[in-house]
């Protein structure tokens, strides 16, 4: 293994250990577990419980990712200086930190939601498709929000301002964007026809995730004509690929921007 890779792997291992020992992450996993378990009991059906988990997880995972990611990066700032006084390159440190926080956070959310769903699917002999798709989307959204969190923390030096921006971003992605979308759709129905609506959905990772999951859980029927168009697109392989590419871009692009800034910044 190259020295750089080995160094990044060491930093990742340290990050995982540091994060996994924090109380925060355990509480997060347990809350998700309890929520999933409660829905299974209430709904009495794995697929319906998974569908019921869509909205809460689409709200919670980006919020936790953004807050946890920015807090973690600001908290690590002084120790980062100490690490960079060792023979450690900035990019190795950055990569190691991201992986070190992403692995436990993805682990906590996927295990928290996934364990009860998969256990119930096994004992009741129901399909794994829905729960697995949900877990994949949760993992992707966690990575997206961590990338955005790192970009915010690298760009804005002031911790309070950075946290404020992180919350605003979350609000924008989960609430404001949809509000704007709905307003345009109602006031200018001829503008937000199918294709622009499809594009607008791909531009917001939370919406992309939502549509992917709604398709899976057959809720598109509730969405009328637009639902049919969306089903035609996101139900097909091309649409799934486009959605996957859009979510990947939301992970990679902010992360690369943050990396570049971190490489050039005064620390």
């Amino acid at each position, binding site marked *: 293994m190259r020295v750089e890779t080995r160094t990044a792997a*060491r930093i990742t291992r*340290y990050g995982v250990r540091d994060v996994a*020992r924090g109380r925060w992450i355990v509480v997060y996993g347990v809350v998700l577990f309890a929520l999933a378990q409660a829905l299974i009991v209430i709904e009495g059906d794995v697929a319906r419980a998974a569908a019921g988990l869509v909205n809460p997880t689409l709200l919670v995972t980006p919020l936790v990712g953004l807050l946890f990611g920015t807090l973690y990066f600001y908290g690590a700032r002084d*120790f980062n200086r100490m690490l960079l*006084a060792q023979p*450690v390159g900035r990019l190795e440190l950055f990569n190691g930190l991201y992986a070190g926080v992403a692995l436990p956070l993805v682990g906590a959310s996927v295990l928290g939601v996934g364990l009860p769903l998969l256990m119930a699917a096994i004992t009741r002999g129901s399909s794994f498709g829905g729960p697995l798709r949900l877990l994949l989307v949760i993992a992707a959204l966690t990575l997206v929000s961590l990338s955005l969190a790192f970009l915010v923390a690298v760009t804005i030096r002031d911790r309070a301002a950075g946290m404020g921006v992180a919350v605003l971003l979350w609000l924008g992605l989960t609430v404001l964007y949809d509000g704007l979308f709905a307003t345009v759709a109602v006031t200018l129905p001829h503008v937000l026809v199918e294709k622009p609506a499809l594009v607008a959905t791909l531009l917001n990772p939370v919406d992309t995730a939502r549509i992917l999951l709604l398709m899976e859980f057959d809720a598109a029927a509730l969405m009328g004509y637009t639902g049919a168009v969306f089903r035609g697109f996101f139900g097909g392989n091309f649409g799934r690929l486009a959605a996957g590419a859009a979510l990947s871009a939301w992970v990679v692009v902010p992360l690369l921007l943050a990396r570049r800034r971190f490489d050039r910044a*005064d620390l």
Partner: protein
Amino acid sequence: MIEIEGLVKKYGRLPVLRDLDLRIPAGRVTALVGPNAAGKTTLVKAALGLVRPDDGRIAVDGVTVGDDPSYRERIGYMPQHPAFPDNLRVRELIEFIDGLRGLAPDGADTRFARRPDSAPLDLFGLRSSLDRPLGTLSGGTAQKVNAALAFRYGADLLILDEPTAGLDPLSRTRLKDLIRRERGRGATVLVTSHVLSELRDLAEHLVYMVDGRKRFDGTTADLLHTMETDDLERAVARLMEAGAAESSRDASTREAS
């Protein structure tokens, strides 16, 4: 040795280092002193590659500080404030840094022919704290961990930023013993400190900075001689007074013109 040529650094529009030329001589203890905001910390950060200069060059043992971090294998750094992750234990931190420096946890070498030096751990009485989480350590104990790490790797260059802050008198004495030991080994030591009385019997060379420029660069003996005192603190105070008088003269000249 650290060589600095025409180093310029601005934070936004605020100049912090102004065309600084400086040589920190090899194999000696150099004290870097100056009032707050003189640029000492920025200079130290530039040597570590933490701050990107706007202009000029800084080289450590002939290697220009840039993107290649390998030159830092030769540096031991003790930051002013220890900042460790709360959830790690002291032992894990040490193993982690050993690993980053290419040393296996048991001290067996994987990259170069050096073994970590555990003597500073004993010297600061840290053996009993090895299994404690870093978040539970007092400020002073954390600073001792900081020191033990800086002196652990047989560094050719030690950069110590206010190293005695927060240490009790016994640990301060031990730290000074360590500095002497490293100096005896031929290491270059750069210390920034406000407690000048502590540097009196350590520092052979002194750099006094104000406003991102050096105002004095020479041996401590020279400084004491020039300032006609045998008290280092008083000598530096006189330098500061002279500097203050000069800047107020500059200001009044500007006002008059």
